[in-house]
């Protein structure tokens, strides 16, 4: 119990004193996860919306794949990206392994199905009467689709936030492709795992507190997006 208490006291000191190591880890985590969510959203929202709003060959298969990969085990994703980026892999010539870029790619692979799948679900749940109303008011083509997507905007925002929550808390894939290199690819989750292993709880607890705070703010955003506070 004393260890935990001491850990908390020292962790608070690290947070308050703006410890450079702590804050560089936090910043890298936010950059990597933010980048992955940005890429996943730019590709996933249009794909999810297209699957919900358009009829084209392979649409059902895409939705099935998205739903399947929403539960993609991060370590498996990490392993696949590792094999692709390793020196003997097809993309090995790019020299991306053990870099933040590799971690962004790995997290994107994990987050993309979540954002795309939830965006599909959001757009598909908009009543067909919205589409019909837009048509009767003179909308056509993309304007009708945009109206439907606008109606689903809160659920789509929730999808993005859920994706970010998954990315920031992810440890397996970034550990495999990033290598947890101090000052370069060390993220909050990988640092917590390593510091705990070393028995050095101060930094682990400080990072744990920050990670919890990030999760807390993500949750608040999620609730706000869903209008939970107005109910």
């Amino acid at each position, binding site marked *: 119990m004393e260890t935990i208490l001491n850990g908390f006291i020292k962790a608070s000191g690290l947070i308050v004193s703006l410890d450079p190591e702590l804050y560089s880890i936090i910043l890298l985590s936010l950059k990597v996860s933010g980048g992955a969510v940005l890429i996943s959203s730019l590709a996933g929202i249009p794909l999810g919306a297209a699957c919900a709003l358009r009829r084209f060959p392979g649409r059902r298969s895409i939705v099935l794949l998205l739903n399947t990969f929403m539960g993609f085990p991060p370590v498996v994703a990490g392993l696949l990206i590792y094999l692709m980026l390793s020196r003997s892999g097809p993309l090995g010539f790019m020299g991306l392994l053990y870099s933040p870029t590799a971690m962004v790619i790995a997290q994107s692979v994990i987050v993309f199905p979540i954002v795309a799948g939830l965006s599909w679900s959001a757009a598909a749940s908009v009543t067909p009467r*919205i589409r019909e*109303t837009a*048509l009767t008011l003179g909308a*056509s083509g993309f304007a009708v689709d945009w109206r439907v997507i606008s109606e689903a905007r809160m659920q789509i925002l929730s999808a993005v936030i859920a994706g970010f929550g998954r990315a920031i808390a992810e440890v397996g894939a970034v550990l495999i492709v990033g290598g947890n290199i101090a000052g370069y690819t060390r993220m909050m989750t990988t640092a917590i795992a390593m510091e705990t292993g070393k028995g050095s709880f101060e930094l682990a607890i400080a990072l744990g507190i920050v990670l919890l705070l990030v999760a807390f703010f993500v949750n608040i955003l999620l609730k706000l997006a869903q209008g939970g506070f107005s109910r």
Partner: protein
Amino acid sequence: MSLTVELHDVTRVYGKREALAGVSCRFLPGRVNVLLGPNGCGKTTLLRLAAFLEAPDVGKVVFSDGDLPVAPGVALMRRMTLVSQTPVLFNTTVFRNMEYGLQLRGGKEREIKSRVFDALELVGMGNFAGARAASLSGGEAQRVAIARAYALRPELLLLDEPSSNLDPEGGSVFEDVLRKLNEEQGTTVVIVTHNLFQARRLAHAAFFMYGGKMVEWGDATGFFNSPESALTSKFISGEMVF
């Protein structure tokens, strides 16, 4: 001359049920056309076909302006609109709902604002422009839907029991709006209603449907005072129980 719609031998089938069975008719341009009939007789299907929300399985839906045929497409769709029985408003403010169709038609901001507020005033919703659509009652939402249609100044207005959610005052406001559009803009109106009093008050021409077929239509006075069909007679006298 006004835009109008006519059906040529139109059939529409849902599964095994024939919602429309070889319907042919022409709605009078620039007039208020009332479409009557019991539930399930095909009135709503007819309006949906006229609004391009569905396509006929057999037959043709044709639009004309005077003697000139009008080709289907976005330009035609922006000359008309439909108000349904249950109002559908977008999840945004009343003002944004109102300006949507006007923006699609490329209206200028100043003119859009003026039309929106005029229309809202007309239906007694002048103070609701900033309100969220989701916060409105059913009757208020229906008033906004009617105002939204009015603001578009459509040449062809399709109405599917638009006053069924309205209180007596709302119903009266709706009828005023409809007359104003018809008299001032020359809008062709096709309205489905179960309110026979309202039908008599508004109609220039009346149409009676039964079992997916157009049974009778004609000038409103003749239709209500001396219907030719026994079915029509039973319906407008209230004897038809369904």
